[in-house]
């Protein structure tokens, strides 16, 4: 199973190619790989989200949404420990995170928000694929 920078590079190559996507990837100070994706399907439809992989594949990734204007804010730090920007997801988690009500990201399970569709480390590739496809369906 792929992990680390190879994982986010694979996500970029396999899911986020083409004019609709702008992508940044990296490894943070905690050595967690991350990927930021700006999806712009039209002038009226755009979404900015990020995935950070802390303890992957044992644990699901953190999913965050920010306002699309953040993409060009040079001083803005995409902090995955923040709540993201209000209204940038589709719902708010009980803890106040701007998110989507879809399985296989950390906040889906926090505070017993959902108990179905548990994260399966041995099937992390498939769980992550489902998460990404679900985000794209709603982005």
């Amino acid at each position, binding site marked *: *199973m*792929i992990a680390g920078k190879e*994982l986010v590079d*694979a*996500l970029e190559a*396999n*899911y986020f190619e083409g004019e609709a996507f702008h992508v940044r990837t990296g490894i943070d100070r905690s050595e967690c790989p991350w990927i930021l994706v700006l999806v712009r399907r039209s002038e009226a439809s755009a979404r900015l989200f990020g995935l950070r992989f802390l303890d992957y594949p044992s644990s699901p990734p953190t999913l965050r949404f920010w306002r699309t204007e953040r993409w060009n804010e040079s001083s803005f730090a995409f902090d995955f420990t923040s709540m993201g920007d209000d209204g940038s997801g589709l719902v708010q988690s009980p803890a106040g995170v701007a998110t989507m009500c879809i399985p296989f990201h950390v906040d889906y399970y926090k505070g017993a928000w959902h108990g179905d569709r548990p994260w399966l480390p*041995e*099937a*992390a*590739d*498939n769980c*992550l*694929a*489902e998460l*990404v*496809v*679900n*985000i*794209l*369906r709603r*982005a």
Partner: protein
Amino acid sequence: METSELPQEEAKGFEVTVIATSAKKIKAHPRELIAQLKLAATAAFGIPPEKAGDYRLASAPGDPAAEFDEAKRVADYHLHTGSKVYLVKPHTDA
């Protein structure tokens, strides 16, 4: 398209790239049903046969219109060597 009309290499079979986060090469044949190709793909990703029905193949991720009809054949979607197909859960309105 009849198999006899296909280039020889493709009539014999060829490899497509199936993506479920990572990418795996799967042997395909123009006359093969999409359902058969999906079974090979799910097996390659360690998905047990009894769970294969939970998945579909698609030409693009996140687009319900891109999901393949499993009763059609590989040739119907003009798949060829190097074609990318995605292993996805079928779209629902939920």
